[in-house]
Structure formats: C-alpha cells, structure tokens
C-alpha cells in the first residue's frame, strides 16, 4: 500500500482558451512531483449522477509550483466536462493520478540515434493537441510539431516556443487545409520518431504512414474508463502480443497505455 489516494485538489486558475476549450491549472504536489508527459489524470464531478472519471491528459507539469495543467473540451450540455468548466480558482476538484505510462523520452533507445541527430515529430489532432505540449517541453532533441484543428487553434504560441510548428485546419483558416497527414505531406516533413495523440482515424493513418516508412511511432489511445488503474478491464484495445494481465490480446489503455508503440496495437 503506497498510499495513493483520490485527492481533492484546489484549482489555481481556469480560463476558456477557445470555443468550448478550457485550460485549468490544478495544485497537486503529489502528481506534479512524479508525473511524466503523456500521463493522464481521472477527474471527477461532484454530481452524484456522474460517478465515473473523465480521463484528461496532462498538458503541462510545473514541479516548482506543484501545479499541473489540463486542457479539455466541453463535449456537450449536461456533460461532466461542462461542470468542470464552471469551476473557479479556489474551488476543489477530485482527481486521481498520475495514471498510465506516458511517452518514452529516450529517443536514443528508440531510434539508435544521438539526441542531437534525432528528429522527433509530435503530432496532435483536436483535443489530442494538449498532451504534446509537455512532451515538447521535455523532449531533448530536434522537434517538428504538427497540430491539426477543425477550425479554432489553441496552445499555438506555447508550441511555437518549442520548435518548428506546422498547422493543419479542416476549414483551411490557418496552415494546411486538411488534416495532419496533409500537413506532413504538403510540407515534406520527415522524422526518426513519431509521437501522436488524436482521434482514432488520425492515429490509424499515422500508424500506417509510420509503418510504411519504418519510423518508430508512439500513439496515445482513448477508451471509456471506469477504474483508470487497470482493474476493471473496461478500456482494452486489441494488442498484437498476448497481454500480461489476462493473457489474451487485450491491453489496458489506462495502465498498459495510453501510449503504445503503433506496431503493438490495432486501431
């Protein structure tokens, strides 16, 4: 018993950063201390009608200030995320974390290349954009960042500070018109390792692209969750290898993931 607990954490600040997109800083020593990019937290409402967690990725981790940042989308009216959006600084929020494995930061181990020779491509799509920010901050190598949005962009200035940023928008309002794959092809981008988070069709395309080009590729997956810690077996994805838990082909997104080698999972 390590004493991990669901904690009632204080909200440092919250603001809307785009239509239906909110950014919240939460004070939590425990999580800020140990978390790595790509991990997530379970966020809970105080409404007894909504008992399950909302898994939300860490967008930034501030060890100094014992803070974590989450950026999330309000998915509709009457949702849990809508309730989160109403919270103000000083309010508390119940959270559990850090959860999951996170992105591997050691590019050499993954590509065989020196840090200075290695080029990493970070791809985010929609609400998969936020976790790429802390990854970009911690990744100690050349970075190409490709972020795809429907229309409104967010976190753009933060990314620009971290390296070369390419934008794709579905409506063509900025960057390449189309999706992240269009931006990659349109700009002739290439890399030695890929990190990606976004909707399933995007991950599917990236997985194919990476495998065709034999690029090591890590993707962060999504599934509905109940426990968030690997017990309930709600959040499985189909894995190539027999999984360590149930000895079938079902890896748990919450515990064995959310980050998987693209070759490891089906999508």
């Amino acid at each position, binding site marked *: 018993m390590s004493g991990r607990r669901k904690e009632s954490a204080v909200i440092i600040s919250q603001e809307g950063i785009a239509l239906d997109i909110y950014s919240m800083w939460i004070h939590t020593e425990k999580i800020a201390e140990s978390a790595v990019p790509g991990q997530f937290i379970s966020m809970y409402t105080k409404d007894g009608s909504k*008992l*399950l967690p909302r898994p939300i990725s860490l967008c930034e981790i501030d060890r100094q200030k014992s803070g974590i940042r989450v950026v999330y989308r309000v998915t509709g009216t009457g949702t849990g995320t809508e309730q989160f959006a109403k919270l103000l600084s000083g309010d508390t929020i119940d959270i559990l974390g850090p959860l999951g494995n996170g992105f591997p930061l050691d590019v050499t181990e993954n590509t065989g290349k020196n840090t200075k020779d290695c080029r990493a491509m970070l791809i985010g799509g929609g609400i998969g954009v936020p976790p790429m920010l802390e990854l970009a901050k911690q990744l100690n190598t050349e970075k190409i960042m490709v972020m795809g949005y429907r229309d409104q962009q967010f976190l753009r200035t933060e990314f620009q500070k971290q390296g070369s940023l390419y934008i794709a928008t579905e409506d063509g309002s900025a960057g390449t018109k189309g999706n992240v794959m269009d931006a990659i092809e349109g700009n002739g981008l290439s890399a030695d390792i890929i990190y990606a988070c976004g909707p399933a069709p995007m991950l599917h395309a990236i997985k194919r692209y990476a495998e065709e080009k034999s690029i090591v590729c890590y993707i962060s997956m999504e599934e*509905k969750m109940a426990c968030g810690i690997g017990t309930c077996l709600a959040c499985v994805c189909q894995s190539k290898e027999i999984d360590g838990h149930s000895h079938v082909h079902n890896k748990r997104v919450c515990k064995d993931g959310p980050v998987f080698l693209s070759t490891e999972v089906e999508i």
Partner: protein
Amino acid sequence: MNTTVNLAGIELKNPVMTASGTFGSGEEYSEFVDLNRLGAVVTKGVANVPWPGNPTPRIAETHGGMLNAIGLQNPGMEVFCARDIPFLKQFDTKIIVNVCGKSAEDYCEVVERLADEPVDMLEINISCPNVKEGGIAFGQNPASVEAITREVKKHAKQPVIMKLSPNVTDITAMAKAAEAGGADALSLINTITGMKIDVHRQKFALANRTGGLSGPAIKPIAVRMVYQAANAVRLPIIGMGGIATWEDAIEFILAGATAVSTGTANFYNPSVTVEIVEGIEKYMEKYHIENISDIIGMVK
C-alpha cells in the same frame, strides 16, 4: 467490539468484501487500501481457459450508476493459480474466488483445479448478463440453479457461494433452489440487464448492446432482494449492489446480509472498502453494538 462474522464456517475479520470483477485480484487497489483490513477479497471471475471478453466500448455511464459488458475477460485458472493466489496469500484476508463457465463442466473444472489451492471459498457466478453462453442462463430458472449448485458442490472442497441474478421475477425461488442444491451461502445481487443508446450517433452505447447495471442507482432493488432472500432461506447472504458508504453497508446488514461487497464504488473512491470498515466500527460504537452479527437481519 467484535466485527467478525461467520460465513458458512469461514470467519471473516469484518463483513467487508470486494465485489467480483471490480477489484481484480487486489493488486491494483493494494496501492490504495491495505488488503489486510478487508474481510475478504473476491476475485474477478476465473474460467478454465483464458477468455478475451467483449469488444469495446464495454462500459457506459448512467445516472448514478454504470453499465458494463466486460464479458468476463480473464486469464484462465492456470495463470490465476500461479500469479494471483500467491499475491493474495501475502495478506491476512480471506480469498474468495469467483468462478465462471459456459457449461456445468467448465465450472466444475475450475472448482476442481482450486480444490487444493489455498482458497477459502468459491463464488459461482451464474448471473453474468454479458456472455452468450452460461452466465445468466443458469441463474434465471430454479431447476437449473439447483442443478448447477448440486453439480458444483460435488466437486468443491471449499464452501460454495452461489451468486444470484436480480433479473428474475422472484428472487426467493432462486435462493431456495440454491439452498436445495446444497449451497453454503448466497451472493446477491449481480448486475441488472440494461441498455443505453447514444442519441446523437444513433447507436448502442455498448458494443454488446446490453450491459449490467451497477452502482448506487440499483441499491434499493438490491436491499429488497437481500431482505427477501434472507427471510426465505437459512443461508448466510453476501449483500451487494450500490454500496458506496458505511451507511449503505449497515443498511444491507440490517436487511439480512452477513457480509457486504463493494463494487462500482471502488472505481470512483478507491479507498471505499477501508472507509466502510471504519464507518461500521464507529456505528457500532455509537449505537452500543457489541457484535456486528447481532444486527444481521434486525429490521423485520
């Protein structure tokens, strides 16, 4: 103050257990709660061979509860015996293994395999609504409840708990059938079959279409069934269905449960089991209850 209860000859240090399928084999939650504090750990269902479970989405949130259609994914009895039993043996708590199968033979194979393992009790799941064969089919008809109970009892070395389905017209008929078949105890309730439809995608929320409803939403139904069963048979009853606080646990005990299990609540409050143990102790102190067993079925 004495919190021990006797469950078909097995003495539990307190009546608080975990509901099968919501606590794995305890490993993940051992980070949050001291397993030594629990009356028993009830494991996820174990089959004779590994089961892959159902496609995703496997769960959906509902008002005050959730639907699940995990489909009894499990590594099978060999991995379970090699890995999970030794893990649990590190703790001073009872081990109750939940057993699932697609046929009477499947159940019996697992029960036999466990016969010489350091397992305290067996819980036979004849009430899972999420698998095509076996599961609930065995649990909705008194004759088949009695038959499967009798068959399992023939092969079991440990006391046998039959886990009943709430998806029946008359729970007392099933309880009596299990008693007639030789069951040593009853667990109730398993989940209630439910469905959710996503009105925007115009699709079922679960890949399996239906799932089992659990959580606080179903508690009044569970309390009623525990009360009815407790007043129909002499077997000790493990009550569950929506228990999330110590008040809920006491409610089931007053209704007639000898022990209680927490399922869904673990997911949103990982330390709920130990909080309930502590709450029960405070309750006993406040109302001067010497033995928790004195209040089992007290409300009549």
